[in-house]
């Protein structure tokens, strides 16, 4: 749904507001790295803006700390519709190591509705480009939940039951 919406609404340019809500600056450096000529997201028309009122996209880095929680909400409300929110880095996605500490709300999704998650500590600049390209519909999603089971029982149940019966013969003899 958001890929469609993003494809229509954000076809020509995305103006990005970069919101640091208590990050260690690792993610911030990678976000700025994305704007350098080497990675150059300006070929997609992206640009950092200083005010959330000009922005289409908010990149939240950092587990939202308690002092920054009202400010993050205020910045989110100041953005004009339609808006996209990206949580960048493991702190923004799920709170990082500080997910349950006293001064942290535990991830950007606890403060504002988040549309896309970019995990990594910090995410590679390519991972951030990939996340934004995913929102624009340029690439396909690769992540999917993995479920694995040990289908074969390590010990043969039949053999084990047989051994169990053989071992109990002595008790049967004693009963008699």
């Amino acid at each position, binding site marked *: 749904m958001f890929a469609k919406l993003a494809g229509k609404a954000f076809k020509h340019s995305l103006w990005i507001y970069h919101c640091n809500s208590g990050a260690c600056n690792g993610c911030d450096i990678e976000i700025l790295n994305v704007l350098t000529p080497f990675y150059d997201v300006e070929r997609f028309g992206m640009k950092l803006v200083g005010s959330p009122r000009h922005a289409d996209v908010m990149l939240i880095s950092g587990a939202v700390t308690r002092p920054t929680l009202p400010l993050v909400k205020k910045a989110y409300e100041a953005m004009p519709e339609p808006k996209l929110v990206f949580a960048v880095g493991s702190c923004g996605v799920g709170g*990082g190591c500080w997910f349950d*500490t006293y001064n942290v709300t535990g991830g950007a999704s*606890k403060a504002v*509705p988040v549309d*896309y998650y970019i995990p990594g500590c910090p995410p590679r600049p*390519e991972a951030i480009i990939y996340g934004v390209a995913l929102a624009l519909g340029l690439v396909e999603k690769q*992540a999917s939940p993995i479920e694995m089971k040990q289908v074969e029982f390590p010990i043969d149940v039949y053999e084990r039951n047989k051994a169990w019966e053989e071992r109990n013969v002595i008790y049967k003899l004693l009963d008699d």
Partner: protein
Amino acid sequence: MVLKPGVVTLPYPFEPRPVPETFRGQPHWDHNKCIGCGGCAAHCSARTIFIRDVCQEVRVLLYDSSRCTYCGRCADVCPEDAIVMSNEFEMATEATEDLTERLELFMLTCQRCGRCFDMEVSNQLDKLGPHGFRYDNLEHRIVTNRFADQHDPDALKETETYERPSKVED
């Protein structure tokens, strides 16, 4: 004056970009090698790995990479080398459920009495509870699945009166 003009920009999203050799990406479990010792769960700094015994012989390992810092500690402590830090970094999703990995492992029981293997009440992780070690359990865990259109304001209100979680009483 430029002697060798050229383009430095990577054509990244359209062409793959290899990672350096020492890169640590998404960890992957080998369910054939895993013995279910729970060493990774005990050492995980962000507590992203949950272990729960659903019955006497089946143990569930759930890995939630949403807050994983990719420190590689789990791969270091694994005695069977069942965890491999892959070089996947293109993990951006719309839902955090895509970042989970779930293993169901068969556990051996005592051949004499048939049980002997500690159930979850006397689990080693539970014994650490009185010492302040807490972990999420599968039953009470709320999977943070908040799309923008599914966002409920009630969950948001909970954060306003956020308190430090108290120590678990035994």
